[in-house]
């Protein structure tokens, strides 16, 4: 219930601020104003270009280590109950991913050539 209340207030605040602005602001559009803003330079060409595959590698590695970190949350919460057993378990888990990390490192996946 508090979560729902929080979401409702947050959504109402955001939408309310936008709607209040829409009610009171002046609307005098001209072509230059409606153009996408590119730091004062006239935009040239398509906004959608092909991205480099490097972004994909970085995102993929991020997802993997993000999941690794997610596994550590419940581990940390119950660590005082399970103790050494859980510690060894997590060491194995981290070691396996460390192998992957070293592989990515040696293959220069982190380098932006």
């Amino acid at each position, binding site marked *: 219930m508090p979560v729902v209340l929080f979401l409702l207030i947050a959504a109402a605040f955001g939408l309310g601020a936008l709607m209040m602005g829409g009610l009171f602001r002046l609307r005098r559009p001209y072509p230059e104003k409606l153009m996408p803003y590119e730091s004062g330079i006239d935009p040239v060409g398509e906004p959608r270009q092909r*991205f480099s595959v490097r972004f994909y590698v970085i*995102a993929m590695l991020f997802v993997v280590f*993000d999941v690794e970190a997610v596994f550590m949350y419940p*581990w940390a919460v*119950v660590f005082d109950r399970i103790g050494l057993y859980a510690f060894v378990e997590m060491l194995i888990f981290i070691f396996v991913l460390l192998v992957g990390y070293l*592989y990515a490192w040696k293959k220069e996946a982190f380098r932006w*050539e």
Partner: protein
Amino acid sequence: MVELFFGYLAGAVVVLSLLVVFSRNAVHSVLWMLLMFLHMAGLYLLLNAEFLAATQVIVYAGAILVLFLFVIMLLNITEEMRLEQFTVGWPMGVSVSLGVLIAMLAALSGFRTDLKGPWSIEAVERTTHTKALGKVLYTEYMLPFEIASLVLLVAIVGAVYLAKKRLR
């Protein structure tokens, strides 16, 4: 009250999933999917699975959708979208989804709610979800947990290998 929330969330998930599938613009699809993942996190909250809900938002909405966006921008799908190869496969798609639907309807008669394990709703509420999950995951399901690390390792190696091969 709970039924009302469930109805809203379930309905929203269905509508948003349809929007994901029917969007012409692949980037719009991903953004609809983001909203759908947030609603699914809401469904997890209703199931007393707070940790799962937070993970859903952080990992799926935060990380995996970024990956989807990168793949779409990598392929730059705008021109390829109208190509034949993406539309000719529809009879196969329809038959597979119909088959899954029939299998699910057949399984519906075997659906039971009276089974009880050691982790009832009250037990999970008492220990809190994250603790309950940790307790089970790091003792009983130790092997699947370690296998998960291997799966992640394969993901790293696969991504690095594929991408680096293309760069050379």
